[in-house]
């Protein structure tokens, strides 16, 4: 990948208009109006030359990965179209940030906005988006009725698969999920948060990354045929350093990595970490602009392990 000419494309789902929500016809349900809104309402597309700052943290942890995105100088009409306050947690507004170089993009964030608001700072109007990966699922995905009932003898794989499929209406699809041994001895009746149940069932190995559900142990990696090379040639900055059981290093913006990927580290100054490692955290941070200096870096966290098991993504 040639690493010059930063580029991005930000898609933000427009707000459901209050007029539509109130509705001329009171017999039309909110769900139908929302569906109508989602079908007819295009995402607001934000692209260069507008300047964006972003700070995106993704990791293989039980809590949701998050992003903070600032857009400079959207016009008033577009600002109002994406306004969202904290309390609208039943309104799952999608935020998708793709970024890369030239015309080559990778999805670096896919999630749901917690709040979107605009302020004026000096001569700039800044629109700030705070969003969480799988935020809608974390907030709203709950078992209803008997959807969380599993009779004795159901394998844990079946239970986990069913739970993951229940996340689909909340924008989360199945990714790579390892096999879990055993079956339910006595019938299970789960209620409440589906994600909390998945964390219990997977020994807290479940996580969501870019709208996909994963359950991987430390030694599991997502199967791919060619692990990305991490070297000074591909943008490795400085020397990898070990922090507890993690190996951390900075790179020139590397948008195509995802959590659970295998990478092939080839450092000339930290040779002890060379070889196949697993990505467990990503922190993309920087600014893409056509008018001021752009700079984006990616901090990568690896889990140093010798023998990985490859798990195929769905």
């Amino acid at each position, binding site marked *: 990948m040639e690493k010059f000419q930063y580029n991005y494309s930000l898609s933000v789902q427009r707000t459901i208009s209050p007029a539509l929500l109130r509705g001329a016809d009171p017999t*039309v349900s909110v769900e139908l109006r929302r569906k109508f809104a989602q079908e007819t309402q295009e995402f607001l597309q934000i692209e260069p030359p507008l300047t964006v700052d972003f700070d995106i943290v993704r990791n293989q942890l039980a809590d949701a990965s998050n992003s903070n995105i600032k857009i400079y100088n959207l016009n008033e009409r577009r600002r109002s179209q994406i306004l969202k306050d*904290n309390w609208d947690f039943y309104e799952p507004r999608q935020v998708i940030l793709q970024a890369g170089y030239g015309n080559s993009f990778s999805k670096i964030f896919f999630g749901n906005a917690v709040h979107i608001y605009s302020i004026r700072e000096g001569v700039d109007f800044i629109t700030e988006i705070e969003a969480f990966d799988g935020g809608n699922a974390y907030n709203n995905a*709950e078992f209803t*009725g008997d959807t*969380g009932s599993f009779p004795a003898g159901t394998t844990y794989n079946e239970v986990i698969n069913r739970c993951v499929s229940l996340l689909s209406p909340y924008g989360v699809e199945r990714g790579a999920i390892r096999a879990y041994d055993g079956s339910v001895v*006595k*019938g299970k009746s789960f209620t409440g948060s589906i994600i909390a149940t998945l964390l219990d069932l997977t020994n807290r190995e479940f996580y969501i990354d870019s709208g996909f559900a994963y359950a991987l142990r430390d030694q599991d990696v997502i199967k791919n045929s060619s692990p990305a090379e991490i070297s000074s040639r591909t943008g490795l900055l400085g020397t990898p350093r070990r922090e507890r059981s993690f190996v951390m290093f900075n790179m020139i913006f590397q948008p195509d990595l995802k959590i659970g990927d295998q990478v092939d580290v080839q450092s000339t100054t930290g040779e002890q970490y060379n070889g196949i490692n697993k990505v467990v955290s990503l922190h993309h941070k920087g600014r893409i602009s056509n008018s001021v200096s752009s700079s984006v870096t990616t901090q990568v966290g690896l889990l140093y392990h010798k023998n990985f098991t490859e798990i195929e993504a769905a």
Partner: protein
Amino acid sequence: MSGNLTRHAPYPSLRDLMDTVKREVKIEINCHAVARIESFNPEKQTVEAKISYTKTYYKKDGDGNLVPYAVAYPLLLDCPAIIIGGGGGSLTFPIANGDECLILFNDRDLDNWVSGSNNSQPEIPTLHSLSDGIALVGLRTYKGEPEEYDMERAVLEYNGAIVAVGKNGKVLVKNTATDLKAAIDSLVTALDTFATSTSTAVIEPTLGPAATALKAALVTVSTNIGNILE
């Protein structure tokens, strides 16, 4: 309720936040719940039960206000029923569909325990899960049976048949047709009548003294039965 939700402070104080957190914790913990038995498995001695109330969720109405709506709890599967007993003895009841019960949600997963293990870590790390219910049958609504509660006796009752121990230490055994004391009294009376007639009859010389002895014995038996049975 919906009014409360829509009138929250935009910037809650720490006190508001802590109150909300406390409430959230209480809402999420399953402690125990009243339920109605849907089926009983006498082989495993487990019940399937339905919690007798609903969960409340909120959704936006056409004006954007949050309004509550009810969602049923799932059917609780394979809840071990508490069968009173110990030391090899037990007291069983014909648990039936529609019986009311109290479901106690165990702190930890019960899978390994129901499989016979008494010293293993839980199979999955659920806490106070609906999946780990234990049924205590016998809880009743205000309209429940027994219709007439006996304050003078400890009573074991089923379908009109009663075995009861009274405060006076006497036992009452009866059903809808008769009671044991009356039946034994009838027997004693019949034998006494027979002994009386036999002791005075001149049929066989040796029967007279035997009948007299039987009469005396019947007095003792009757006294003893009267001391035991009501």
